[in-house]
C-alpha cells in the first residue's frame, strides 16, 4: 500500500505547497519579498520532485489514475512552467500586495489540478481535475489591480468556461451511454467498433471541446484575447504556458485513446486545425497589444499542434509532445521579456518595445529568438517542432494540410516581424524608462536562448524521449 502512495508524490507535494500558502493567506501577514522567496524555493523543489518521479509507473484509485512516462514528463514540464512563472514574480506589481498569498495559493492548486489532469484516465476524474484547474484560473484572472477595468474579463472567462464544461459533461454522458463505462481504457476497447455511430462521434467531440477550450482552439477561443489582456501579466504567462501544456497533453491522450480512425472525426479535426491556424494568424496581424497578439498566435499554435495529433500515429503524438514543449519554452521566453519591460504590470503595447535593443540587448535577443521560434524559423526549437508535426502529417498523406500549415507559418512571420521591428528598428517616441534586468533574469534569458537553439539543432535524444512518452501512451 505504501508503494502506491509513492506514485502520488508530485501531487502530494503540490498539496503541501498549496497548504503553506493557504495558511499564509489566512494570516495575511506575508510581506511580498518573503512570500516570493518561499514560492521560488518551493516551486524549485517541485521541479526536482517531479524530475525524480519521472520514471514511476502504475495505477491508482481503482485504475482511474494512471502514472506513466507520458504523464510524468508532463508533470515535470508543468512544474517547470510554474517555477518559471514564479521566477518572474519578483515584481508582482499587477496584483494587490495583500492578495499575493492567494495568488501563490491558487497557482499551486491549479498546478496540482493540471498534474492530476494529465494522469486521469477516467471521465469523471478528468472532469473533476479540469474543473479544479479552471476554478483556480477563474479566480486568478480577475485578481488584478484596477480590477474594475478588467472585471468584464473575469466574467467572460467564467461564462465561456462554464459553457464549455457543460458541453463537456454532455459529451461525457453520451460516451457513457454508448459505451457503458467511464474508464477511458475500456472506452478504447469498445469505441473502435462504435466510431461510426453518430452518438459516439458527437460524444467524443463534445468531450474534447472541454480541452479545446483550455487550448483555445477555434471556435473555443473566444475567451483567449480578453483574458490574456485582462489578467495580470504573470497570470497570463501561466495560462499561456502551463495551462496550454496540460490541455495539449489531454487532447493527445484522449485522441490517442479514441484509437479508431473514423474519417468523419479526422476530417473534423483537420477542419478545426485549418480554421484555427488561419483565423488566429489573420486576426493577430492587426493587434496592437502584444498580449493580445500572443493570444491570437496561441490560437494558431493550437491548430499546428492538432496537425500532429490528428495524424494518430505514434510519430504524430510524439511530434505533438515535442511541439508542446517547444511552445512552452518559446512562449515563456516572449512573456518573460514582456514582464520585464512592463515591470509595473501594465499592458504592453507593441510600440513600447521601441528601442529595446539599446535598453536591453539581451532581452531583445531573447524576444527575437522566441518570436522566430514561434514563426518556425530554424535553427530554433519551433522550427524542429513544425518539421516533426508536418512530417507526421505527410506520412499519413495530408499534403494539402501541410501546405496550408506552411502558408500559415509565412503569414504569422509578418506579425512576428512587426514586433521584432519594434524591438530592433523603431526609435522610441518618448524616452521609456530603462529596463532593469537582474542577474537571475539575465541567466534565465541565456538559458532559454541556449535551450531554444540546442533543442532545435540537436533534437535526436529529445525526439527519442518524446517517442518513449508517446509509446507509454498507447
Amino acid at each position, binding site marked *: 500500500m505504501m508503494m502506491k502512495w509513492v506514485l502520488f508524490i508530485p501531487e502530494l507535494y503540490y498539496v503541501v505547497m498549496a497548504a503553506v500558502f493557504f495558511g499564509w493567506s489566512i494570516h495575511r501577514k506575508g510581506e511580498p519579498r518573503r512570500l516570493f522567496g518561499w514560492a521560488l524555493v518551493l516551486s524549485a523543489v517541485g521541479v526536482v520532485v517531479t524530475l525524480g518521479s519521472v520514471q514511476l509507473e502504475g495505477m491508482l484509485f481503482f485504475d482511474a489514475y494512471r502514472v506513466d512516462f507520458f504523464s510524468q514528463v508532463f508533470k515535470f514540464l508543468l512544474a517547470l512552467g510554474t517555477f518559471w512563472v514564479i521566477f518572474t514574480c519578483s515584481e508582482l506589481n499587477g496584483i494587490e500586495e495583500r492578495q499575493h498569498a492567494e495568488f501563490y495559493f491558487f497557482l499551486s492548486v491549479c498546478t496540482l489540478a493540471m498534474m492530476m489532469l494529465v494522469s486521469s484516465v477516467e471521465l469523471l476524474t478528468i472532469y473533476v481535475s479540469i474543473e479544479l484547474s479552471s476554478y483556480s484560473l477563474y479566480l486568478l484572472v480577475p485578481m488584478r489591480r484596477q480590477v474594475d477595468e478588467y472585471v468584464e474579463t473575469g466574467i467572460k472567462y467564467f461564462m465561456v468556461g462554464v459553457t464549455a464544461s457543460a458541453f463537456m459533461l454532455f459529451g461525457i454522458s453520451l460516451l457513457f451511454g454508448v459505451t457503458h463505462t467511464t474508464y477511458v481504457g475500456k472506452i478504447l476497447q469498445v469505441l473502435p467498433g462504435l466510431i461510426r455511430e453518430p452518438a459516439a462521434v458527437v460524444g467524443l467531440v463534445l468531450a474534447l471541446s472541454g480541452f479545446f477550450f483550455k487550448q483555445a482552439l477555434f471556435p473555443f477561443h473566444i475567451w483567449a484575447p480578453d483574458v490574456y489582456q485582462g489578467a495580470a501579466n504573470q497570470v497570463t504567462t501561466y495560462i499561456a504556458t502551463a495551462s496550454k501544456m496540460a490541455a495539449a497533453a489531454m487532447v493527445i491522450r484522449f485522441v490517442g485513446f479514441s484509437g479508431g480512425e473514423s474519417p468523419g472525426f479526422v476530417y473534423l479535426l483537420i477542419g478545426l486545425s485549418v480554421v484555427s491556424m488561419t483565423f488566429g494568424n489573420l486576426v493577430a496581424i492587426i493587434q496592437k497589444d502584444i498580449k493580445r497578439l500572443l493570444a491570437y498566435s496561441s490560437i494558431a499554435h493550437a491548430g499546428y499542434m492538432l496537425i500532429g495529433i490528428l495524424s494518430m500515429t505514434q*510519430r504524430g503524438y510524439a511530434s505533438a509532445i515535442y511541439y508542446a514543449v517547444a511552445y512552452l519554452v518559446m512562449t515563456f521566453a516572449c512573456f518573460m521579456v514582456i514582464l520585464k519591460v512592463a515591470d509595473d504590470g501594465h499592458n504592453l503595447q507593441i510600440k513600447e518595445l521601441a528601442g529595446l*535593443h539599446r535598453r536591453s*540587448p539581451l532581452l531583445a535577443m531573447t524576444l527575437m529568438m522566441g518570436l*522566430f521560434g514561434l514563426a518556425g*524559423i*530554424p*535553427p530554433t526549437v519551433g*522550427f524542429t517542432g513544425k*518539421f*516533426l508535426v*508536418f*512530417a507526421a502529417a*505527410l*506520412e499519413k*498523406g495530408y*499534403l494539402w494540410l*501541410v*501546405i496550408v500549415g*506552411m*502558408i500559415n*507559418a*509565412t503569414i504569422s*512571420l*509578418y506579425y512576428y*516581424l512587426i514586433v*521584432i*521591428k519594434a524591438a*530592433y*528598428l523603431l526609435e522610441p517616441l518618448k524616452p521609456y524608462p530603462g529596463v532593469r534586468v537582474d542577474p537571475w533574469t539575465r541567466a534565465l534569458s541565456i538559458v532559454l536562448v541556449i535551450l531554444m537553439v540546442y533543442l532545435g539543432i540537436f*533534437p*535526436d535524444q529529445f*525526439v*527519442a524521449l518524446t*517517442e518513449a512518452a508517446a509509446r507509454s501512451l498507447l
Partner: protein
Amino acid sequence: MTPMETAPFPILSTILLSTIVGLLVILFIPEDRPKLVKQVSLLFAGVGLVLCLWLYYAYDVQKGGFQFVERFLWVKSLGIYYFNAVDGINLPMLLLTAVVLFTGVWTMWELEVRVKEFFAFMYLLVAGVYGVFMSMDLFWIFVWYDVSLFPMYPLIAIWGGTRKEYGGMKLTLYLLAGSALILPGILYLWVQGGAQTFDLLELQRIGFPLGVQKSAFVMLYLGFGILAAAWPFHTWSPVGHVAAPTAVSMIHAGVLMKLGAYGILRLGMTLCPEGLAYWADFMAVLATVGIVYGAFVGLAQTDLKYVIGYSSVSHMGMVGLGLSTMTVNGINGAVFQMFAHGIMTALFFSAVGYIYDKTHTKMIPELGGLSKTMPMASAFFIVAALAGVGVPCMASFWAELLVFVSAVKTYPVRGILAVLALVVGALFMLRVVQKTFYGEKNERWAHIPDVPPFLMTPRIILIGFILFFGLFPKMLLDVIQSAVVPFVAGL
C-alpha cells in the same frame, strides 16, 4: 556512383565553423569597439576564403564525384544525417560565397551605425549560405536555407536605404513563402522514399515514380525559383536590392539568389529527373520571359541599383534557361553563370555602393561625368558592366556562350529571343555607363574623393576573379563538368 571516402580532416565543417565562431566572437566584443568588430569579421572571412581556395585546389578533378565527405547519423528516428560533401557543382559555389563575404565585409569598412549587430547578422546569413551549399541532407539544406534568409530582414530594415522597411518585409515574406513550398516538397519525397532517410544521395537512388516526381518537382522548382528570381516571382528582388546596404546587396545578389538556382539543380533536378523532363519546357518559357523582361524593364530605370536589379533578373533567367536544356553544355553554362554572375554583381553593387555613400544619390540623371572626378569608382562599375554584357575575356562570356549554344539547339525560338534580349541588355548597360560616367561633368560631385587604395583592394580582388576565370575558363569548367557529365548521362 563512385565510392565515398570520409575526409580525414573535416574541412567543410571547419569552413562552416569559421562563420559560426566568427559570429560568437563578434557577439562578445563590446559595443564601443567597432573597429575591432570589423577586424575580427575580416579575419574570419579571410579564414573562410583561404580554406575555400585550398579546397578548390585540393579537389581531385580527375576522380570527380563527392569528396571531403563528412557523414554521420543526426536524428535516428527520422533518418537525418549530418552529411557534408563537395562535388563539381557546389565547389565553385563555396568559393563564390567566400569571395563575396570577404570582399563584402571589406567594403563595409566605413560603416558606423550599429556595427556589431550588422556583422553578427551578416555572419549568421553566410553560415546559412555555406551550409546549404555543402549539405547533402534535405533536412539540413532546408535548415540552412531558412537560416540564410531571415537575417535579411534586420539587415535591410535597419541599415538599408530606399524604402527599406517595405523592401525588407517584402523580400523576407516572399522568400519564406518559397520555403512554404520547399518543406512540403522535401517531406513528400521523404515519405515517398519510405520515411527512412533524408540523405540526398540515397534518395536519388530510389527513383521515384513519375507522378511523385512531377508534383515534387513543381514544389521544389517554385519554392527555390522564388529565390532564384524566376519570372514572375522576381518582384521582391529589385526592390530588395535597392533597399539593402552595399554588402548585403552583394551577398544577396551575388550568393543568395544562387541558392535558389542551386536548390533547383541539386534537389529538384537530381531527385526528380523525370519531373524535370516533364516541366523543362515550362521552365524554359519562364526563364526566357525573365531574360527578355529583365532586359526591357531595365531599359526604363533611372536608379542605378534598379538597373542592376533588373539585369540580375535577366541574368538569373539565363541560369534557368541553361538548366532547362538538360544538356551538358547548358548545365555547365548555368553553373558557370551562377559563379560569374555572383562575382560580377558583387562588383557592381560595391561600385554603386561607394558612389552612393559619397554622393547620396544613385539616380542616373543626377550623376553624370563621374569618370572625371572619381576615375577608379567609375572603372569598377564599367568593368562590371562589361562583364555583365558578356565581353570576351570576362567570366560571364563563357557562361553565356555555353547557355546560348545549347539553348538555341534545344529551344530555337526561345534561344534566339534570349540572345536578342542580351543585345538589348548590352545596349541599356552601355547607355547607363555613358550617362553616368561620361558626358557633362556635374560640378556638384567635383569635390568628392575617389576610392582610397584600402577600399580599392576588395574590388580589385573581384575583378581579378572575373578576369582569371575569363582568361582560363578551363580552370572552372573542368570542375563543373566533373559533376555535370555523370548527371546528364544518368538522365
